[in-house]
């Protein structure tokens, strides 16, 4: 190929730069705020931090007592951030486990066993996306109360999987459907059970797609604020987003931003680690083997 002229290269480069800044700037801005002292937050330059400090982060872990110092005539309360962290981890891990196992089972049934009308099952499950959970608050709350799960993290383990499930079932079953029949057949002829064939052959093959589902599930669970703050009432039962939502931002802006960053960091790291696998899994499920 003939070399591209310099203006094309320059255009390409500046577009890349523009895209990167657009994507990263808000995150950078939040990070900078969380590292500021109160003094710098008010008088400093909003875009840079001159005297970075972890004060705001430490504040989150300070004392579980009632008061935490006074601003003006307002008592600042302490936040049970460690509890929030623990709850969030529990909810994310539980959501991942439930979503992946339930969607694997359903997808295997639809993609490999193919009961009559499996296409319609698939469509029906995917079509549940039409109903945003956010219009179902009131009846959802009734379900949660009937099951005795109000103010319990288990309520989230009931709701979050259904938010990611349709996509995961759809993705995995598309992948399973594309796998040629022969893959299992040789194992089945040699007397292995379907279950053995699944765990020995199909499951290892579908790792990239599982990664894609996992990242999608994590992203979905991590994006909910509404349902968590609706169902979790008492402070020590809340997840980080629900808890941060109750913070008095006018007084605790810096601590809140620090909390935002603390929640985001591990999620971003996991996403970054699996980012390539995520793309590969999406491609594998939707394109390969057609």
């Amino acid at each position: 190929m003939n070399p591209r002229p310099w203006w094309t290269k320059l255009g390409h480069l500046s577009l890349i730069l523009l895209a990167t800044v657009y994507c990263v700037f808000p995150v950078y801005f939040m990070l900078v705020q969380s590292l500021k002292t109160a003094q710098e937050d008010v008088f400093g330059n909003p875009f840079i931090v001159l005297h970075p400090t972890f004060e705001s982060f430490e504040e989150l872990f300070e004392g579980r007592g009632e008061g935490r110092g006074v601003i003006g005539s307002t008592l600042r309360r302490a936040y049970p951030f460690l509890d929030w962290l623990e709850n969030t981890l529990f909810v994310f891990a539980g959501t991942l486990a439930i979503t992946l196992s339930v969607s694997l089972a359903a997808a295997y049934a639809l993609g490999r066993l193919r009961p009559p009308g499996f296409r319609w099952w698939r469509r029906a499950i995917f079509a549940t996306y039409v109903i945003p959970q956010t219009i179902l608050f009131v009846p959802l709350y009734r379900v949660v109360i009937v099951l005795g799960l109000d103010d319990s993290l288990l309520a989230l383990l009931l709701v979050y999987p259904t938010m990611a499930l349709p996509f995961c079932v759809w993705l995995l079953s598309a992948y399973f459907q594309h796998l040629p029949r022969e893959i299992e057949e040789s194992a089945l002829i040699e007397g292995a059970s379907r279950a053995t064939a699944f765990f020995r052959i199909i499951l290892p093959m579908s790792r990239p797609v599982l990664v894609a589902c996992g990242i999608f599930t994590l992203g979905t669970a991590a994006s909910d604020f509404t349902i968590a703050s609706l169902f979790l009432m008492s402070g020590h039962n809340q997840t980080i987003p629900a808890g941060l939502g109750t913070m008095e931002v006018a007084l605790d802006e810096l601590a809140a931003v620090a909390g935002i960053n603390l929640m985001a960091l591990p999620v971003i790291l996991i996403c970054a680690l699996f980012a390539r696998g995520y793309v590969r899994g999406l491609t594998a499920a939707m394109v390969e083997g057609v």
Partner: protein
Amino acid sequence: MRRTQRQRDIRTAYLLLSPAVLLLLTVLAYPVGWEVWTSLTSLSPLQEGATAFVGLQNYSQHLEDPQFWRTAAVTVVYAVVTIAAKLALGLGFALLLARPFRGRTLVFLAIFLPWAYPASVSVMGWYWTLNPPIPTAYAAFMGHVKYSVDSAFGGGAWVFVSATLFNIWRGSSFIGVLLLAGINGIPPELFEYALLETKSPWQRFRMVTMPLLKPFLALGAFLSLTSAFSDIANVWMLTAGRIVFPVLGTQAYWLAINGGQFGPASALSLLLVPFLLGALLLLFRLFDSPEREAA
């Protein structure tokens, strides 16, 4: 022998499907059924006496209310604007990343970041940055922006714009990565062949890339529709309903929780569903195209 094997497979299939179906029934089907039933009644926790069956009265009441049409218009405009912006930006990102260049991995991670950053908390940072409550260094500037937008388009406009911008920022990242996965799936031979057969990059894009990306575009559009509503619900919840530009879902919640009018609220929620169903049917048309079914 074969026949019984098949029957056993079918039974296993239903068994394996049951957890997923059970979850969806409890968390979606039952609530939807409850809303459908309630929307036909005068159910209200504030009301004394028996709940009456009122038929379609709740619906007709909304359809006659100009406020409903304003809300519906806001909902549709919000959905269309965010989807168009997200698809355009996402396509741009995917095309930028399609060809190798130095530092591509880093740029890819940067583009992945807005979606990977948990929206539940980034929406707070975003919201309090654009609508700062206390005298931070940028509060005066943002306040100025807020008041000029609000005075031009009515109270609450800036808050709504912030939520829209947030959804576009986050969604364009998701769609960009999704479309990149689509582009990666296009066999390179096809591009080489296209290089010989077509005259301009634009023609290649239109004749080769676009048709092959169509299912991914449809999927991205549909998934981002769902996220558009959850993002706005997040902002709405965060501000305790201070968005004065309501969309159908949040407006219904307001009616139910503050007004105690479960019937009309349910009717209002369900009036959103036809829009979404239309979008879904369109997706199935585009994605499960007949050629693919035959294969």
